[in-house]
């Protein structure tokens, strides 16, 4: 061990701890990382979280091992005497290596994040999304337009409109499985944020703005949706449950809702990508 020296020992401990740590993260932690695999977008985010955690492990291990070792090995053993250490003022090669390694790591992370972003990533992208996921095709190879669903935030409730089915508005969010959904998020008053945690969707609802996010649900079941932007008094109560159902159940639900909502449809404003109250008392 003596031949190894301080630096060698730190390197060995670091190699061991970061290898063990990375294996543990990849096998034990990774399957539990959010937001899970309920949609294509959620799987993508989970993969990003996994890669970032994996990259973090050797960094944490390096700092913790280095400081732990140095603080023990180089502690003052005779505190009563004020003695100085060796006057080392820097080391060009160490600095160069550090700069190169951190720069490469950062560039890798940025490139990785950009690559992962290309598929849309479930975040709200505004009215002109730059990162659109590949369109779905039917068995016959025909391009399938995504299903449009409008999410309307208002204090303190989300409502939903289905423009492809006559534009009825309902307080329930029901989505068909394996179908690409184009969510149009907007608000009637203040800023809200539509967060379907399990589906990996988060998009702010701004008044007068059509904020588009894509999601393709992969599993049947229910999911929580919450407001993730402080929107006033009852922000904490602005949550609900949505459902992902099979295509047949979705058609049935839509038919039921259409019939149920038909009498009030004429009172709704026609479907638009955003709704604004009339300017009231403003000068500008």
């Amino acid at each position, binding site marked *: 061990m003596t031949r190894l020296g301080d630096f060698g020992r730190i390197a060995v401990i670091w190699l061991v701890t970061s290898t063990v740590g990375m294996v543990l993260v990849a096998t034990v932690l990774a399957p539990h990382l959010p937001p899970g695999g309920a949609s294509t977008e959620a799987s993508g985010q989970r993969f990003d979280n996994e890669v970032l955690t994996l990259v973090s492990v050797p960094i944490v291990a390096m*700092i913790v091992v280095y400081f732990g070792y140095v603080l023990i090995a180089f502690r003052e053993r005779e505190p009563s005497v004020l003695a100085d250490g060796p006057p080392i003022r820097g080391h060009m090669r160490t600095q160069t290596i550090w700069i190169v390694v951190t720069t490469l790591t950062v560039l890798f992370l940025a490139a990785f994040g950009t690559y992962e972003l290309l598929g849309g990533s479930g975040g709200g992208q505004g009215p002109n999304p730059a990162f659109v996921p590949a369109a779905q095709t039917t068995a016959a190879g025909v391009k399938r337009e995504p299903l449009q669903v409008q999410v309307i935030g208002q204090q303190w409730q989300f409502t939903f409109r289905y423009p492809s089915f006559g534009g009825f508005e309902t307080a329930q969010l029901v989505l068909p499985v394996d179908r690409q959904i184009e969510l149009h998020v907007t608000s009637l008053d203040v800023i809200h944020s539509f967060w379907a945690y399990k589906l990996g969707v988060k998009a702010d609802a701004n008044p007068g703005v059509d904020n588009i996010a894509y999601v393709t649900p992969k599993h049947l079941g229910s999911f929580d949706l919450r407001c993730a932007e*402080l929107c006033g008094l009852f*922000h904490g109560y602005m949550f609900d449950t949505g459902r992902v159902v099979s295509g047949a159940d979705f058609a049935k639900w839509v038919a039921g809702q259409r019939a149920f909502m038909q009498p009030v449809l004429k009172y709704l404003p026609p479907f638009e990508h955003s709704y604004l109250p009339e300017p009231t008392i403003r000068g500008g």
Partner: protein
Amino acid sequence: MSATQTEAQPAGRPPLWRRLVGFNLLTAVLLGIGGYYLGWFAGHHIHAASLGFFADTDQNDVSLFLGYVLGVVGFLVGLGFANYPLSRLLGKPASLREKETEGVGRYFGLCTDHKVVGMQYFVGIGIFFFFAGLNAMLIRFELLRPEPNVWPAGNYLTLVGLHGTMMRGMMTSGILGPFANYLVPLMIGARRMAFPRIESLTFWLLMAAGVILTTTIFFGGFPTGWTGYQPLNDQAQAGMDSYIVFFALVGLSMMLLGLNMLATVITLRAPGLTWTRLPMFVWGVISTAVLMLLAAPVLIGVLSMAALDRTAQTSYFVASAGGSSYLFQNLFWVFGHPEVYILALPGFGIVLELLPVFARKPLWGYRLAVAGFLGVSLLSWTVWQHHIFVSGINSDLRPFYMLSTELISIPTGFTFLCAMGTLWRGRIRFTVPMLFCLGWVFNFLFGGLSGIFLSDVPSDVTSHGSFFSMAHFHYTIMGGLIFTFFAAIYYWLPKMTGLMLNELLGKVHFWMMFVAFNSTFAPLFALGFMGMPRRVVTYPSNLQALNVWVSASAFVLGLSMLVFLVNLVYSMLFARVPAPANPWGSKSLEFQLPSPVPVHNFDRIPVITGDPYGYGEDTTVIGAPALVPAGE
């Protein structure tokens, strides 16, 4: 009894009532209240059909804004800030120095001694820090149960807003206020700051702002949190006005503080103190001051627009009348992201300043460390849209903001590398300030790494607006700023007061705070990952166990602050152990002066012959005393 007291007074000293008349805090408070009512009265006589009127508080926004502004003007006049410009206008000779004497009275008014201003900041900011911390405790009480149990929803939001706004606003000057004001002149061999009156003004503006923010509880509080997003800001009740006035005053104070620091360091350095000999703490101050000077005007501007929206019924941020809620978000974060580095950078400076002293080694990689500070300062201007990745703002710039945000970890890494190099083969002494600096290393490591999750766009979709991001910025700001704030207190307070702080209580404080801090905020990462949004009064019941754990840890964290308070009171009032001039064996310039520092700092302005990190080297920081007379 009274006879003996009168005899004990030195001859010629006027009676107490006479000493209370003059330009001091008492006059200032009276004129401030007068000014408030003047503004209130005037505001009630402005009538327009469009003015919002809040019947429950008998206020309209105009009367509140006018009241606050005139109240601040009255307060400043009462302190004596108008005397100098007025006497110059009238052609009379004005006093260049205010209250630069001994005695307690100088702490309660406009004083141009930078050491007095430093102590004023320390106490003033300390009070608001504890108040804001108490709000955090009240928030954690509420979150003990998933359903609302202590506070109604509105009060809860006000608590959240008060905690965040007060911490952000007051602690922005948490290190530059007390420590830079006190120490920068001592470290650069000067007798004063470049603009001593402005220095005092920054402090009193901040105190006025703090009181104004606290008055929000009389006007219904405010629902927006510290970010004050529009259009909720525009919709909110009268309590919102105090948020706007508070942050604008803080911005003004911050801008002037930064300006003063820059001017001081640029112009008042002692002979021989070249840029490569400057202490790292001063570099931390400079990189912060640049951000303060340039970022704060944006904040003042955006809040002025918000104030006009609320009073003159303009529509900068009202979508239905042609405005945009994104305008506020963008302008706020153009200020807001530099702001978080304003909070972090002084901490970097303190860590690199203290590590050489307690490792007994020169600072490792001085130029790299300076490059790191300036790099963070520069890059912090290019990253603000990472706060609004999911807001629906134009999405094609997202890769750029992802890249620029991640680039910041390169200069931040320099600070870590220099800290690591400095400890290498050192003779490390585990004093209380050193422990707090090492705490910074650990906390900021996790704060920084969790930031990468938030800068990566797909990952940010999960974490944005959740407890994950809340844990992230508490790790960087509480784990970064507050830990170094306490390092600075334990390190420099003996110099500032001439009295040592108790070491045992200091160590108890550190370990309690360090363990409780991590036990409070580490689970918040998990809570965020499990889907808990910020600023909610209710949450899913499966998250209760973790929340109870967090609340319990937070209460211990609060108790650790009480340990510090006990230490402070015990050491300053009861134990009173005199501090040696140089208790840490530091080579830095401020420790070559007696404790406490005399009113005019240096008898002769020193000539600097090296940087203050020559441990193990045969150098001293001060050469022969300057032969030039030490002028003002």
